């Protein structure tokens, strides 16, 4: 069949707009703030074999396991997939990325043939297990984390399997989860309708051949991008600190990247073995992290479909911290993305120095829960606003201030301050850029943020998860490291407790102030090459101190006028260069 190249463009545009429509259904209808406020979900379309057609990736770390699970489901049910089926899945030992992220798959049939799939996956408020919400730092095996859901049909041929539905939701604490899963099914129905309309219009043969052509043209784009990276083998490593069990424990992520003309391989064979706690990745959470980091170094306009991933190989041996062996605990796995990204950036900084960023601030997050005496109701709040540090600087562009971890890359939003005070019993005292937190550089890192709030209500629990309190975001090519993450509880009696990065603190009294610093991003290039006028502007704005301007940038600022002292600056900069 002759390919209508214009129709290929048309189909690509339509796939994208269908996944966006699926995404809107979830934003507007879900009730868990993790979904509707933070948009911790993805939607996607897959072909009959489970290959990616298009995705809308609000939180990229979730997105690149939808395809592998879809292929697994096709294989698992074989010829027992019927029109009207709806399949749930979260199991990390059958390609799931994190067991809090539960996916819905709906097969799409046309003229009695399985031609495509619609899928939606979201981070659920609870999926059973030992601890509400699934973050159980004490877990040593999967059953202590959540209910395992390997592929299971909750609808077959359009009929609800009530027994199966009840079995699943009998094991889940919060009622809103069932409502949110219904919303995900609704999202897949919207996707199915969109694909069927295209098939009715163009017919199956045209659809299939043009889809293949789309994959090929996307693959060509990706290959052309990879071809711009010099051939060679590049190694990088990063450290994961504290497994939640043994203070001072450390694990290395080691990646060997081989660029061979138009193909690239990420090999993690030298990475340290898995931990015996929950700080472990699964293959798909780790591979997602690898892909999303690499995608930031290529043309952002490349469509996201199977063609994009074809020239990229990712090898992660089982038994490593990035691909833990059954039945390990793995809930922390998504949060191994930041150190994984660090290892990749370090490796590729030698190959494509102008396209990598310096290190990003690592995630450190708190979660408060308790009883709101104003409303006589329980509440849970994830500290999105406090966790967002800076990204690393890159060639010609400063890091992004207050963006948050690389696995979301600015896709997760702060709570609005006034809504935060309506919905929790806390009083927000400060949420501002943290001056001098960014790594200095010709391009500085993004600024981190300081947050302070007074805890109210009763029975307050504070949970923390993350990293970044030992090693700051790193600078590159002469750029400086940034600042560390920190969470402290200042009790009303004057004592201060600095939390660990995987902590659970119970019975926090009202009046305690939670103080968080999310560090900045690393600097890029020699800070002495930064334009003194920019440094002066930042001093004037109070985000760089007069002292730091002099120490780090060699820019002497008159503390009164806030203007650059040209001569002193020249002298100072010349001195160091000698």
């Amino acid at each position, binding site marked *: 069949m002759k390919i209508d190249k214009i129709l290929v463009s048309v189909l690509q545009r339509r796939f994208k707009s269908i996944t966006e429509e699926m995404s809107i259904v979830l934003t507007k209808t879900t009730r868990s703030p993790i979904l509707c406020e933070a948009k911790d979900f993805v939607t996607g379309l897959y072909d009959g074999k489970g290959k990616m057609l298009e995705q809308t990736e609000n939180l990229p770390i979730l997105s690149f396991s939808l395809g592998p699970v879809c292929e697994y489901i096709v294989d698992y049910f074989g010829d027992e997939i019927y029109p009207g089926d709806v399949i749930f899945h979260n199991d990390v030992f059958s390609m799931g990325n994190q067991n809090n992220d539960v996916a819905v798959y709906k097969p799409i049939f046309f003229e009695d043939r399985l031609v495509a799939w619609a899928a939606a996956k979201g981070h659920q408020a609870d999926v059973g297990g030992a601890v509400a919400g699934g973050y159980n730092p004490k877990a040593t095996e999967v059953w202590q984390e959540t209910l395992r859901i390997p592929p299971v049909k909750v609808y077959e041929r359009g009929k609800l399997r009530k027994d199966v539905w009840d079995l699943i939701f009998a094991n889940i604490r919060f009622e809103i989860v069932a409502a949110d899963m219904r919303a995900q099914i609704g999202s897949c129905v919207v996707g199915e309708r969109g694909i069927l309309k295209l098939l009715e219009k163009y017919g199956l043969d045209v659809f299939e051949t043009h889809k293949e052509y789309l994959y090929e043209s996307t693959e060509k784009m990706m290959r052309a991008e990879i071809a711009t990276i010099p051939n060679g083998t590049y190694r990088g490593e990063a450290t994961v600190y504290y497994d939640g069990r043994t203070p001072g424990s450390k694990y290395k992520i080691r990646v060997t990247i081989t660029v061979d003309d138009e193909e690239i391989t990420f090999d993690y064979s030298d990475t340290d073995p898995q931990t015996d706690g929950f700080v472990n990745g699964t293959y798909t959470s780790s591979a997602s992290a690898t892909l999303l980091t690499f995608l930031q170094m290529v043309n952002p306009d490349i469509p996201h479909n199977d063609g994009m991933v074809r020239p990229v190989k990712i090898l992660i041996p089982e038994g490593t911290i990035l691909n833990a062996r059954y039945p390990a605990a793995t809930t922390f796995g998504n949060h191994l993305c930041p150190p994984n990204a660090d290892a990749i950036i370090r490796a590729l900084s030698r190959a494509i120095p102008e396209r990598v960023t310096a290190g990003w601030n690592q995630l450190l997050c708190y979660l408060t829960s308790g009883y709101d005496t104003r409303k006589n109701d329980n509440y849970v709040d994830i500290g999105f606003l406090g966790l967002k540090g800076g990204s690393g600087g890159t060639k010609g562009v400063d890091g992004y201030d207050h963006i948050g971890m690389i696995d979301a890359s600015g896709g997760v939003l702060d709570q609005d301050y006034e809504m935060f*005070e309506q919905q929790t019993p806390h009083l927000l005292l400060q949420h501002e850029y943290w001056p001098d937190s960014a790594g200095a550089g010709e391009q500085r890192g993004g600024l981190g943020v300081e947050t302070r709030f007074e805890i109210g209500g009763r029975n307050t629990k504070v949970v923390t998860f993350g990293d970044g309190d030992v090693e700051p975001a790193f600078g590159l090519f002469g750029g400086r490291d940034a600042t560390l993450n920190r969470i402290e509880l200042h009790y009303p009696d004057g004592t201060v407790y600095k939390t660990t990065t995987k902590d659970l603190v119970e019975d926090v009294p009202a009046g305690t102030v939670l103080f968080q610093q999310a560090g900045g991003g690393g600097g890029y290039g020699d800070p002495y090459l930064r334009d003194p006028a920019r440094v002066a502007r930042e001093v004037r704005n109070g985000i760089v101190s007069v002292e730091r301007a002099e120490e780090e940038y060699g820019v002497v600022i008159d503390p009164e006028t806030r203007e650059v002292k040209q001569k002193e600056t020249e002298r100072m900069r010349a001195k160091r260069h000698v």
Partner: protein
Amino acid sequence: MEYKIGIDVGGTFTDFLLTSEDRNPEIYKVLSTPDDPSVGLMNGLAEMAGAHGMDIGDFIKNVTTIVHGTTVTTNAVLTRKGARTGLLTTKGLRDALEMRRGIREEQYNNRYTNVEPLVPRYLRYPVEERLDYKGEVVSDLDTADLLDAAELFRKEGVEAIAICFMNSFADDRHESVAAGVMKEQFPDAYLTVSSVFLPSIRFYDRISTTVLNSYVGPILKRYLTSLIEKLDAVGFEGILLIMQSNGGVVSPQIAMDNAAVTLLSGPAAGPVAGIEYTSIQGYTDCITVDMGGTSFDAALIKDKTPLVTTEGEINRLRLSLPMLDIVTIGAGGGSIGWVDEGGLLRMGPQSAGSKPGPACYDLGGVLPTCTDADLLLGLLDKDFFAGGKIPLDYDRAVQAVKEKIADPLGMDPIEAAAGMYRVINVNMASGVREVSVKRGHDPREFPLVAAGGAGPVHACMIALELEIPVIMIPKESSIFCAAGMLMSDLKHNFVRTYSTRLNDIDAKKFKSIFLDMEREATKLLKSEHIPRDAIQHIYSLDLRYVKQYHEVNVRITRDEFEGADVSAIVDRFHPEHNRLFGYSLEEEGTPIELINLRLLSIGKTAKPKFVQEQYDGEDPLNAFKKRRKVYLPLAKTFEMVPVYDGHKLKFGNKVEGPAIIEQVNTTTFVTPEYTVLCDRYGSYTMFVKDREDEIKRKIGI
């Protein structure tokens, strides 16, 4: 003779529509004067006077109303040429404005930078003060901070000030003290106080909107003051009204004090015009699309009411005032076609604009645009573009399409032009999908009103892509917004936050908030000379299920708010939630939360009347010009197609597709799937064959 004039200032042209009781409306277009748009406006008035054989002084005496849409505020934000603004905000929270809740819109693009804030950090002054979530004082206001801020602002030459404190939606006591001090210190500064301007919850939304108002306030004030002086100088004694983003108009004085209401007013008159044109034929719903040189605006109207949003943005900055929900995408006559690295054809969003313009303008543009493709396909006549004022160069168009599209794709230039035409139509169709499907409406149930210079060339193909059976091309389609302005009523929005569970509502408080807003509105409309019997109030509530984050706006009646009739309100909320999102939690008994009370007050204005034509029979022969070769997209071949002079088509004339209808300012392409009927006002209705009887009934044949 009494005239009313609608004036829409665009990037290239300033459009005028002149109406009177007993004559056909007249269209004028003059070149815009971006440095001072009032110059182009006055030029247009002079041209009109000349056309009527009068000098401007005699002419302007007959003008009772001028409705004016201006983009001076929009441009001030886009080009960062607003006023130097200082901000007073609560200590500890000075960066909310710049952080924008920590979003990076392009997640995979590490070269994508944050927007520069309208107020730099050193002019965002933190003030010691704090109210809690109920508006009760946690920390007293430190007036010494205010004086320090005043000193800084004076030193820095600030000409506009914004005040936004935490939780001030619940109580204005600290903001009003701060406002008093600032007025005393800076009697001439432009001041916006958040608890007055937008007393609703959501700190980032409020601070961003408040700052935007101060940033553009002095710009609008200067512009309108100078315009009024110019109009006074020629003896204008009628009423001047200014278009707002909410689809209503407002008197200049009120616009100056609330300058941000004009920020996205550019396309806002389009939907208003859409309602008027389609309601003539008995429709209550429609979708309007307006395709100009660089952008394409789509809006949806349901029950004669355009969709409204409070989640608007300008240049990535939140603008949280009620405004028409208009989807704008980068698709226009000037949109540039290109081939990406993977060999796929794309159109836009880059545009060649009017300078250098499409390749066929021969003004230096060498990149192939939508207009070039339209020319290659025979949809435009090289000798009759803009009525022949702009000659088009066919060879330049071919060359651009060949070099940039056809050769890289291994096609001939016609095939490539057809591809460009198709891709841009798909892009525009997805803009329409966004405003319909994504908002829960099926576009097939709406007539498509196509406007703008380039809109009618593409309307049929957009409609086919979406399976829309009925299309309307208004007679004034090329100056659609100028026409819409004359049809707009005065409109004012008010909002107050009252955050509580609906069941715990304090009836007295609830009622008094609405009555306060109503009093304020009536006073305002009275100052705009609207008699009491021409005022309409629309009451609504922002409600949600407990623990949800997105509210649903529900309209209620006067009786319901006076009686604080919770059960009636609940009965309205559940089905509305169900309609929008496909489910309700009525059976589960989930409690409902109230967030905001809203009032929309409308002052009805007299609408221009259009002259009706006599029935002329079906035969369009009088308007027949010639036949020319036109490319038919679905058949993928050229065919000789009849061309009609649109100005000669009469009421009742029927044209079967394929056909071309040419007017001076626009060309309508009727594909073979559609038939056209001309209605008694000179507008065209296009429809698929099996709708003919229905359409004839609607237009009264």
